[in-house]
């Protein structure tokens, strides 16, 4: 997968190590000689530091990650941190017919308020950024770590939702033709405007109408782009990697995600189950006999710990039977809960070796 795909998306529930997995896949691809960029969404601080991403606007542009490949190799790893607002701004500029049209959208207070926080905006911007990097031609492989979401499936539908928003009857009426706000007679739209006005005051109504109208200038471009992104996500060179942990709640979400990926015909690249407790080496029968008869003391404590860890590790493997079956023909990779969590490039290199 890391040698052939052009796009990889890691998705799954929160707290299972998605970002770390995405970065480790990037390391593996770079080591295989590919020019790779990893788009992270909300990296933990130390991982961000390890990838050379500090806070601020500059993090939105790719940075070379040092210490992954030696100078003789063609492979390189670059990383960036998704900035939803900047990605949205870039999209608006690209799709606008003129600078003036772009400024009208970008300067609108409603646009400024929602570009980073609109529900679903982060998901859409993650796939939009993927598209921007993919078509730039600068990269052999683009890996996108998706935003944490209870409903990770949101990402898959993000482009369709934007189209849904642009097709909403209220939005249509507000943006069609040159009618002024005062002349809007459509019942649904006037109720909508009245509701916003009653609830949030007249200023926001003017801003909202102005925002929707300015958006209308670039609507064709946005729709077209949403369609392209949607096709790209289903392309032959794309792979979705579902990341989970063995905990029942996470497994439930991963199963849901795997079913949705299959139903909507997205290409599944693999399932990674992370944070599995290591299974200790079992006792031989004769050792078992000896160790079963101990009185209290440190050795009894060690035996008890061995038994507990074994039973937890086995219970986790039972949890995984169904979800691993759902992965079908796609590879399943199990990664242990390590002695120490990964925060640096050498740690990522070690994880990359386990992954491939």
């Amino acid at each position, binding site marked *: 997968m890391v040698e052939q795909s052009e796009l990889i998306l890691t998705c799954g*529930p*929160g*707290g299972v190590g998605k970002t770390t997995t995405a970065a480790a896949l990037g390391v593996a691809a770079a080591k295989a000689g590919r020019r790779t960029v990893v788009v992270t969404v*909300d990296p*933990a601080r*130390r991982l961000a530091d390890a990838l050379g991403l500090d806070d601020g606007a500059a993090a939105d542009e790719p940075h070379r990650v040092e210490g992954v490949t030696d100078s003789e190799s063609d492979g390189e790893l670059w990383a960036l941190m998704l900035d939803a607002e900047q990605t949205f701004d870039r999209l608006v500029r690209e799709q606008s017919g003129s600078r003036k049209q772009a400024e009208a959208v970008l300067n609108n*207070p*409603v646009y400024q308020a*929602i570009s980073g*926080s609109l*529900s679903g905006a982060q998901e859409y911007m993650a796939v939009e950024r993927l598209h921007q990097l993919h078509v730039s031609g600068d990269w052999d492989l683009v890996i996108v770590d998706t*935003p*944490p979401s*209870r409903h990770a499936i949101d990402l898959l539908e993000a482009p369709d939702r934007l189209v849904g928003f642009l097709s*909403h009857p*209220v939005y249509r009426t507000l943006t069609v033709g040159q009618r002024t706000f005062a002349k809007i007679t459509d019942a*649904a739209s006037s*109720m*909508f405007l*009245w509701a*916003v*006005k*009653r*609830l*949030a*005051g007249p*200023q926001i109504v003017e801003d*909202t109408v102005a*925002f929707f109208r300015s958006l209308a200038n670039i609507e064709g471009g946005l729709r077209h782009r949403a369609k392209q992104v949607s096709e790209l996500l289903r392309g032959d060179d794309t792979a979705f990697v579902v990341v989970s942990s063995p905990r*029942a*709640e996470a*497994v*439930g979400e991963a199963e849901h995600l795997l079913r949705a990926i299959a139903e909507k015909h997205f290409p599944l690249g693999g399932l990674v189950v992370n944070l599995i407790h*290591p299974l200790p*080496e079992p*006792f*031989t029968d004769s*050792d078992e006999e*000896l160790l079963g008869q*101990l*009185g209290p*003391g*440190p*050795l*009894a*404590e*060690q*035996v008890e*710990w061995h038994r*507990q*860890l*074994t*039973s*937890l590790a086995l219970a*986790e493997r039972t*949890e995984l039977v169904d979800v691993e079956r759902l992965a079908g023909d796609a590879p399943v990779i199990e990664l242990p809960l390590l*002695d*120490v*969590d990964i*925060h640096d490039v050498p740690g990522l290199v070690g994880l990359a070796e386990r992954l491939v």
Partner: protein
Amino acid sequence: MTTSDWLTSATVMIVAGKGGVGSSTVAAATALAAARSGADVLFVAVDGRPGMGRLLGGREITDREQTLQRLSGGGRVRARTIPAEQAFGDYLELKGVGGLLRRAASSASLPMIAAATPGLEHLLVLGKIKELERERAADLIVVDAPPAGHAAPFVRSASGLSEVVRSGPVLDQAEQVSEMLGDPSRAQALLVALPEETPITELIELAADLGDDLGLALAPLVVNACWSDRPGLDKSPAMAARSHKVKLTDSAKASLESAASFGRSRLTQQREQIERLIEARDEPLITLPRLATPRLEPEHLEELADALVTPESVVRDGD
């Protein structure tokens, strides 16, 4: 401090933590612990995570309030979700807004209105919680806040909205919610982490954000899923065997060591991270045990509810 005073020192308890740290489970255990002490508890699942109703001894939690569990001491746990659409409808009704505006706010146009008013959905949910608090709907309202990086925007929606919206009932609502969040006798936050580096860092950041900046009172900080201390693991299996006057085979040593080395480094990491949290924050600290199962059952929740109020869990009292 007696160990459970904090449970009911404010009517609203917002439980929050990053995805994967178990904050929903801790929220449910908190509700159960308070109900056992006789309180009438309302558990509000903002995101409606599947399975929480079953853990609390009842059916799946829906937008219709139901009683999940009655306890012998007179306490009970009720539960509901608060979908933004419903909160919006209730809010309009409360404001005496007539049928026309209510129809305008039908589910088809709430997404549009919410798009025009960022943070509105969160504010509507917090506004509904504030109404429940005002009505004294329960002795304690436990709010299972949205996870995965959305907890801070959720709690911050009230102060964020007042920057965009300058008049009208939304602004009033935002101000009333802010007022509730700033009053330690009305609302507090229970922040949850794991004993690992990244979650502890994020807990420290969340505490600074919600506590220091926003002025929300902080309940004890909770470090969830702590490995129980096992001094016996500090020794090598061969050393440990000496005090039992037993001689181990090489295979037994290897098996024991494969488990012990993992436990040792996890325990060391846990000690370091709890130490770091103690240095960074002044709040009392509670540790909850790591449950030896990947699948939670009601009895595990009972175990956590016990641990929340036993003095043994308190790593550090308030000063």
